[in-house]
């Protein structure tokens, strides 16, 4: 298997069916409705759960944005933290210096994500496969160092811009001309849910549009698409920029919610975790990565009380990758479609594992 085939997601069981079918659409609507009910219920039982739900929604949006380029266009970005973080920093800077109006801050975060992604993408699409991944990583780390060392303040000759290691702290929350009180966590939840739902619907539409089909074609056979006459690089850059917009939005929602923008938002470990969310959930299924994001956030929050929680988290990754090749989404689908078959699969997977290890 060559380097380039390595990023062929066909084998990972991704498909555009399912979520795009009528059943899939109903599924999305049902899920959104369920989440709309879940928020108030969770908050009533334990207020902390609402905090977790918002956290999950934001990372689900981020995972969704990566799945659009990775799952659909086959572009493994190892630098998605760059768009998330710069979107977040853009929001933080606007809130501190200009306005906390959501109608300004959120579009600005999206725009920042788009611009940063277009910049990174334009350079990175020159390379393919793992080399593309490493280029995106390199650019993202450059943004991380810029924020960490507070380079803008040195260049502009002012005291502080990004706040360096500490980041920008004590941010006011978003406001909407006083229409919606976003310091109320429940309102923030519904704002986030609404935006995530909108993003999901637009990504599904995009994936299903002629543009999305071209991206899929690029994933399946890049050379053939180029021979047919598509400007493959341009499609990739545009796809990457669109994805960056959603990642920027996630950052713009996350930072005012945490009232903190710190360099960690830009660090590669976040990008790495994001890739893990996708693979864990089920690549290219859109809902799988969102589920993966939920699982990772929940595990991290719930386990962090335990000693050696990282050991447990790591083991979960290891077990899933060995025994559930198509991620949690794949396992759920096979369980739904044919429970008996799914149990048989588990047995096969165990036997397979034993055979391979004993070889």
């Amino acid at each position, binding site marked *: 298997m060559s380097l380039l085939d*390595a990023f062929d997601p066909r*084998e990972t069981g991704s498909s555009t069916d399912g979520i795009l079918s009528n059943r899939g659409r109903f599924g999305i609507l049902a899920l959104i409705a369920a989440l709309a009910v879940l928020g108030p219920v969770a908050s009533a039982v334990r207020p902390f759960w609402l905090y977790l739900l918002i956290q999950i929604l934001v990372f689900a949006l981020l995972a969704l944005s990566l799945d659009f380029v990775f799952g659909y266009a086959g572009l493994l970005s190892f630098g998605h933290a760059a768009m998330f973080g710069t979107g977040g920093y853009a929001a933080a800077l606007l809130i501190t210096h200009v306005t906390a109006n959501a109608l300004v801050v959120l579009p600005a975060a999206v725009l920042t994500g788009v611009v940063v992604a277009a910049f990174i993408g334009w350079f990175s699409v020159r390379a393919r496969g793992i*080399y593309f991944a490493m280029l995106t990583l*390199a650019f993202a780390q450059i943004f991380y*160092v810029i924020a960490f060392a507070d380079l803008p303040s040195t260049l502009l000759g002012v005291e502080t811009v990004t706040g360096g290691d500490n980041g920008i702290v004590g941010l006011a929350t978003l406001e909407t001309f006083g229409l919606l009180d976003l310091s109320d966590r429940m309102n923030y939840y519904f704002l986030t849910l609404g935006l995530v739902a909108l993003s999901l619907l637009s990504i599904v539409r995009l994936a299903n549009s002629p543009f999305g089909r071209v991206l899929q074609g690029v994933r399946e056979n890049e050379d053939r698409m180029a021979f047919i006459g598509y400007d493959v690089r341009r499609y990739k850059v545009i796809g990457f920029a669109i994805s960056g917009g959603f990642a920027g939005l996630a950052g713009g929602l996350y930072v005012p919610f945490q009232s903190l923008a710190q360099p960690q938002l830009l660090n590669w470990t976040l990008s790495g975790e994001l890739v893990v969310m996708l*693979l864990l959930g089920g690549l290219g299924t859109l809902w799988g990565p969102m589920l993966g994001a939920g699982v990772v956030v929940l595990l991290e929050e719930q386990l962090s009380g335990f000693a*050696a929680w990282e050991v*447990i988290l*790591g083991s979960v990754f290891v077990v899933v990758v060995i025994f559930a090749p198509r991620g949690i989404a794949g396992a759920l689908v096979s369980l739904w479609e044919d429970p008996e078959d799914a149990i048989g699969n588990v047995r096969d997977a165990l036997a397979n594992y034993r055979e391979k290890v004993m*070889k």
Partner: protein
Amino acid sequence: MFVEFSSVLRATMLGVQLGMTLALVAAGLTLIFGMLDVINFAHGSLYMMGAYLGVTVSAQFGSFWLALLIAPLAVGVIGAVIEVFGLRALYGRNPLYHILLTFGLAVMIQGLVVEIWGGQSLRIEAPASLAGTVQIGPVEYPVYWLFVLAVSTLLIAAVWLMIDRSDLGILMRASAHDTEMVDALGIDVSKVFTGVFVFGAVLAGVAGVLLGASRSVNPGMGFGVIIETFVIVVIGGLGSFKGAVYAALAVGLVTAYGALIAPSVTDIFLFTMMAVVLMIRPNGLFGATEAA
């Protein structure tokens, strides 16, 4: 900006030393990728295990030399366990999943390290015989660092000779080039794979002990070094040992000079270098071309 000649010389020596030690880590990473197509995120953790086991062995027996011998071998055993019980189950599947597996392992090992050794920063006691400094021209240079330079360079040279000249090296290169053919010729490729993985782990372990006595030993060092070594193997071209060595030298020098000019943003130089190299040569300096 005026920089004194002696500090440039010192930075050069430091850069070469760092480069050769990083080459030990990068060698394993690039060999493993070349043969197994595995992007091993846990490779930095193996380096870290080398350092921590070095701390324990040297503290237990009061001997740095024993640590330098035992810790890398122990890391080799850990490597064998990872290859046999983890990676082997994934061969033939999309190499993407190796990312998930090895990332998970890296997280696990970091957690284990905190559990066993605690979160604070530790240090391996360098041997008394290597204490002090020597005067080299205008530069006063620590003896231990010269020792690190010598050991790393010798090891890299030995590995180079082995890959280039020995039958084993030919077998390794052949398995990397065409696994099926080597398999068909009656050679147990899976043993070769395990061997290469263990070999890479041992080299990383050596680097961990060597640097553990000059840098601090902490739970973040695994994730820290993995990015540096990724940059190296990508610049050198994935799978190319020669490329990794040259790139490691370049990265070591850029890091050392960067620390001289602008310490807080050294990484920007590194990543810019990688981006420029990839822009000109999309498969790294010595990477296989797409047709291969």
